[in-house]
């Protein structure tokens, strides 16, 4: 990540290249583009459930569930830089709260609110203790969550149904809507997941997001600017837990069943892998992580069901080697490849190309001489 930003930065900042980006950004600034693009996206998402097959809709809905879970992980790990290996616990907790609430016949809005609150409070309590420790200690504490969660879920069978788990089929398409259940479920996932993504987008773009980035970048500098790393770590962890809880609610909307297996430790690692593969510290990367989490087992199953683990491992290594920044860096990597190849030079944004090499050269040289001179 760091190396890619280093190489691309001078190109963007070099004075001669300013023409191209400014025309591109003015294109983006035109009102019909700024209004139209999100509208078009919304309209596309709104139509999607109606045109897809049942299995397609179901896959999309599951992608939504895990994209939200990965997004939560990204808040604490990708944006704030704290290693968390316990995200699946909060998904599981949210799923259990939902299942219990539905089975007890509570109002579904109340169930949803509790599904947000209970994991958030649990996350807050864990973070208050763990964030003091710092470094790897946080990772160790979060590892314990799913490891304790599974036997706990088995033990508290009055609330969890023990190892047989709990079913809750509570999302059926409303009478008269003309929708199939899978379409209705996908709409719920799109709306709830969409809101979570939107709120998180504003969170990480705003004041808090900047504080997270500062804490991630350098805790000492954060302190020297009056930002308490401890407080923001706790905040990030709590928000991640809350988002994990929401993903648990969505899990129940789509899967409609939860058991201790839902929160087993292996899935926590898979979520982490999905976050890295999708792209750490990226909203779009979270969605790609969800796609990876859901689609790859289906693909490997289609290739050879007896080799799924092997194929998934190979794919993981392949992606990490080719795209260390995750799938989200694919367009940038492709653009760079095009710019480097002589064929691509003519077609891809001519003004930036010539300036990129000398631009980075002049920026780097004084740094080098100065360091050498002082040493």
């Amino acid at each position, binding site marked *: 990540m760091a190396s890619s930003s280093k190489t691309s930065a001078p190109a963007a900042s070099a004075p001669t290249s300013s023409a191209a980006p400014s025309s591109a950004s003015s294109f983006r600034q035109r009102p019909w583009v700024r209004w139209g693009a999100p509208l078009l996206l*919304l309209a596309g998402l*709104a139509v999607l459930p109606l045109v897809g097959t049942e299995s397609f809709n179901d896959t999309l809905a599951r992608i939504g569930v895990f994209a939200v879970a990965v997004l939560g992980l990204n808040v604490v790990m990708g944006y704030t830089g704290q290693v968390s290996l316990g995200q699946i616990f909060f998904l599981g907790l949210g799923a259990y709260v939902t299942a219990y609430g539905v089975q007890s016949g509570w109002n579904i809005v109340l169930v949803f609110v509790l599904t947000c609150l209970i994991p958030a409070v649990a996350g807050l309590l864990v973070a208050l203790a763990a964030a003091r420790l710092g470094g790897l200690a946080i990772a160790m504490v979060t590892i314990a969550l799913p490891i304790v969660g599974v036997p706990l879920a088995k033990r508290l069978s009055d609330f969890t149904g023990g190892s047989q*788990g709990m079913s809750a089929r509570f999302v059926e398409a409303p009478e008269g809507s003309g929708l199939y*259940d899978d379409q209705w479920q996908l709409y719920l996932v799109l709306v709830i997941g969409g809101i979570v993504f939107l709120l998180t987008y*504003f969170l990480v773009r705003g004041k808090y997001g900047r504080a997270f980035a500062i804490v991630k970048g350098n805790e000492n500098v954060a302190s020297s600017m009056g930002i308490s790393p401890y407080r923001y770590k706790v905040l990030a962890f709590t928000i991640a837990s809350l988002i994990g809880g929401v993903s648990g609610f969505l899990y129940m909307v789509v899967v*409609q*069943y939860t*058991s201790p297996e839902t929160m087993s430790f*292996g*899935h926590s690692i898979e979520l982490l892998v999905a976050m890295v593969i999708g792209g750490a510290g990226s909203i779009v990367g979270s969605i790609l992580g969800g796609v990876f989490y859901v689609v790859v087992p289906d693909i490997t199953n289609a290739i050879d069901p007896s080799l799924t683990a092997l194929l998934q491992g190979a794919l993981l290594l392949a992606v990490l080697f080719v795209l260390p920044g995750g799938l989200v860096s694919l367009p940038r990597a492709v653009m760079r490849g095009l710019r480097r190849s002589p064929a691509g030079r003519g077609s891809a944004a001519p003004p930036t190309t010539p300036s990129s090499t000398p631009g980075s050269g002049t920026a780097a040289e004084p740094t080098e001489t100065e360091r050498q001179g002082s040493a």
Partner: protein
Amino acid sequence: MNRHFGSRQAIGIAAVSALALTLTACGGGADSGRSGDAAEGAPSPGITDDSVTLGITTPLSGATAGPGTCTVAGVTAYFGMKNAEGGIEFGDGKTRTVEIEALDDTYDPQQAAANYDSLKGDVFAMTAGLGTPTNRAWREAAIADEVPQALIMTGDPIFSDTDESPWQLGFVPIYQNEGEAFGELLAGSSAEHKVAILSQNDDFGEGYVEGFKSAIEGADNIEVVQELTYEATDTSVDAQITELANSGADVIFNAMSVTPLTISALQKAQQLNWKPNWFLPSNTSSPTAILEPGGGAAFPGVYSVSFAKAPQSPAFAQDEDVQTYLSALKEYGNYPDPPAFPHCQWSWMVGATLEQAFTEMEEPTRDSFMEALRSIEGFEAPLMLPDTSVTTTEAGQPAVSTVVVQKYNGRGYDTVESFE
């Protein structure tokens, strides 16, 4: 930018809802292909005039891959053999070959549900998959879609409850069946016995104890002198064994599913010089993996239950069933090694039981299949031990509810008729 957002979102939502309504109105009727749409009597998905496809979701990777792979291998080998013989003649007079589509769920309920969703449109029925959570995850969906979830490998009683699970049927005995079988044997003993119970504090342990107690109810010669539990996550049961040793019991009913705990329980009792007759569930009674390291031979009797012939046992080495099975497993089941888990044998029996249902099924529909599946009585599937059989007509019972009690002979197990 933030300031404008409210109005923009409102417009967006309005536009989208309008669009959605229009599309729903014109698309609703045309959108076919979802389950439940098929007309009465028309063939169900996954069946043609010359073939039928079955789906399996089971763990093929991860910690439970061993038994999971067996659940696919047995039934695949069985139908591979039958297909090579030309196929199976169904009740409607047509001869069909049987294809298997198996997917890996890694013992993850979410993935199992996803596998079911991707299979349900292509397969005639789901079968043979291993695991309680992985089968529970899509049980209700299968009911709603009216897709058979037939002869699955879980001891969870819910799958054998016809009211709760109209499209399901479990294959292997439920926990209660096993406990009950031992209870009956004990109640038939001529002597008086004091019983200590040590059970796992979950549905597994409770099921065994429930079955055992129902069998000894009213038997004057049996007295339960002490009853203790442990957690599946405990690392030691030494304290419980010590306490039970002081109860003076001569029989221990030990409903335990954790291999290392079972071994250490056996060892602790010997250390205390307490040597009762010992009952163990079928999944923690392996002669090589548990009784040898645990020193099972030190006890007057170690009992367990079974319904399948063990292919490794010298007693069945020349058995015709076993030889056919082992060669088919190698040739058609993609399983070259001797089976390490009984699930391979069970899956083979599932194949035979499905064949039984196919030959009785009069229409190529899922309804007709379920009807045929639920009317099998006293079918002695290949590899079954004498005195056990497949019976699907009993309410609340899985396809195999009869098990025979066996006693450890120092190397393997022999079926016993009475408790000595």
